C-alpha cells in the first residue's frame, strides 16, 4: 500500500520541526535547562535577543546553547515575573534564524500547532497538538493564554509554540493537567518592545 499523503505529511512535519529547532535555544543557569526563542538580532551592537520564561532563569546571567551546539554567555536585559517573561542579550556567533510572529489570521480552534523544547535533557524535542480553546471574552485583568492540547513536560518552558507554517503563536509557559498554556506571541512582542532597552556597552 502506498500512502503518498502520509509520506508528504511526515516529510513536511520533519521540515517544519527542523526549522523551528533552529530558532530554539537552551537556556541554562543553575538546574535543568529551559528553552528560549531567538527573537531578533537587532539588539545594540548587533547583539541578538532571546525570549524565555522568567521562571527558567536564576540570576542575571545565563548560558545560551544554539541548536548547532554553539555556546554563548547571555545577559538578562528584561524580566517580568508576573507575565513570566524574560529577555536575554548575547553576541551571536553567526547569522541566526529568528522567530516570525504570526499577527494574522487569528488562531482557529482545532488548528495544528507544534511545540519545541528540551524535556529531561532531550534537546530539540517536538510535540504536536491542536489549539484547545480560543477565548471569546475574558475577565478584566486576567492574563491571556493560548491553550493547546499539546503534551508538554518540564524543559519546554520558554520554547516556541508555532503554527504549521512555522510562525510563532506563543511562548510555552506552563502545563495545566494535560493542557499547554502559552503566552500569546503578540503579547510577547508588545512586552519586548515595551521593556527592552538595549544594554549600554
Amino acid at each position, binding site marked *: 500500500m502506498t500512502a503518498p499523503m502520509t509520506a508528504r505529511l511526515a516529510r*513536511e*512535519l520533519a521540515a517544519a520541526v527542523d526549522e523551528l529547532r533552529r530558532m530554539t535555544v537552551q537556556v541554562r543557569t543553575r538546574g535543568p535547562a529551559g528553552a528560549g526563542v531567538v527573537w531578533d538580532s537587532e539588539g545594540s551592537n548587533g547583539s541578538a535577543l532571546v525570549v524565555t520564561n522568567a521562571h527558567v532563569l536564576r540570576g542575571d546571567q545565563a548560558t545560551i546553547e544554539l541548536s548547532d551546539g554553539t555556546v554563548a554567555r547571555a545577559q538578562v536585559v528584561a524580566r517580568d515575573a508576573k507575565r513570566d517573561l524574560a529577555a536575554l542579550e548575547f553576541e551571536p556567533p553567526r547569522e541566526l534564524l529568528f522567530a516570525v510572529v504570526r499577527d494574522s489570521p487569528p488562531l482557529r480552534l*482545532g488548528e495544528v500547532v507544534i511545540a519545541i523544547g528540551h524535556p529531561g535533557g532531550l534537546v530539540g524535542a517536538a510535540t504536536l497538538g*491542536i489549539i484547545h*480553546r*480560543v477565548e471569546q*471574552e475574558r475577565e478584566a485583568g486576567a492574563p491571556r493564554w493560548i491553550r493547546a492540547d499539546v503534551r508538554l513536560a518540564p524543559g519546554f518552558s520558554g520554547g516556541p509554540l508555532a503554527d504549521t*507554517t512555522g510562525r510563532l503563536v506563543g511562548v510555552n509557559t506552563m502545563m495545566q493537567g494535560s*493542557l499547554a498554556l502559552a503566552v500569546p506571541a503578540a503579547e510577547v512582542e508588545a512586552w519586548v518592545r515595551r521593556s527592552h532597552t538595549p544594554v549600554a556597552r
Partner: protein
Amino acid sequence: MSTVLQSLSTELADAVQSAGRAVVAIQARRRIPASGVHWRPGVIVATHHTISRDENITVTLPDGTTVPASLAGRDPSTDLAALKLVGQSFPTPSIRLDTPPKVGELVIALGRPGPSLTASWGVVSRVDGPWRTWQGAEIDSLLRLDLAIYDGFSGGPLIDGAGRVLGINTSALARGVPVTIPGATVERIVTELLERGTIRRAYLGIGTQRVRVPESLARKLELQGDVALLIVSLEPGGPADRDGLLLGDVLLEIEGAVVSDPADILAKLGGDRVGRPLTARVIRGGQMKTLQVTPGERPKSRAA
C-alpha cells in the same frame, strides 16, 4: 511550502467550526457546566451523570444566549439524557451513521464547559463489538479513545476530520477511560427517551455463574456445549422465582439459544421482552426441564 500539513490544520479547524455550531453548555450541576449536542431540532443530547438535577436546567447556546431546557428523560445505564428546548433554531450537526469509525482514525472531542468551545484530538484506540454496561444496556459498538479528557468532555461530540458526529463522549462508562457512545445507540436511546421518558429493560431476577457440566451428564442429555450457567441467586418474588426457577438449576438455553455467559442472558432481555414469556431449558436433578419465564420490567438501578 508545507501544503499537506497546512491543509490538515485548516481542515481540522473547519471541522471544529462546523460541528461546534451544534455544541451547547448545560448548567445542571453545581460545578462547571457540562456539554451537550443539538442532536435533532429542539432536542439536546447530554450525559446522564453530568445532569444532577431534573429542574432548573439551562443551556448556553453557541451564540452565547442562555435559555431554559426541560429534561425529556434519562437512561443511567447508557449514561445518556435528552433535553428539550423550545423556540430555538440553530444548526444540528451532520451525524455519521453509515461508515463505522476505525481503530486509528483521527478524531476530535469537542466540549463547551462555559461560553467557549474546546477541542482535543486523538485517535480511536479500540472499537468494541456490541457491548453491555454493567447495568445491562446494550451499546452497539463502544469507541475507546486515545485522547486527553478536559473539562466538558462528557456530553460533547466526537467528530471525524470532516466535522461529522460519531457519537457522544463520556468519562463515566469505563472507569474514567474516555469512551464514545456511537451515534446509532444515541439515536435509539433518544427516540425511546422522547417517547417514554425512560428506557425499559427486561429482567429475570437471577444471578448466575459459569459452570462446566460433567461430561457424562452432557453426553446423556445430548448437550451442544459443556458450559452452562448455574443459578446462584434468585430475587425473592422476582420474575424467575415466580415462574418456578430454583436455586441450583443449571440454565442451558433461552429461546433455543445456548447460554454460556451471563451476557447471553442479558442479550435476550431487551425492553420489548417485558411481559413476553421466554422458554428456558435447565438441568434440575440430573434431568432436562423446560420452563416458561416471563421477564418483568427491571426496577431502576438494579443489575442482572
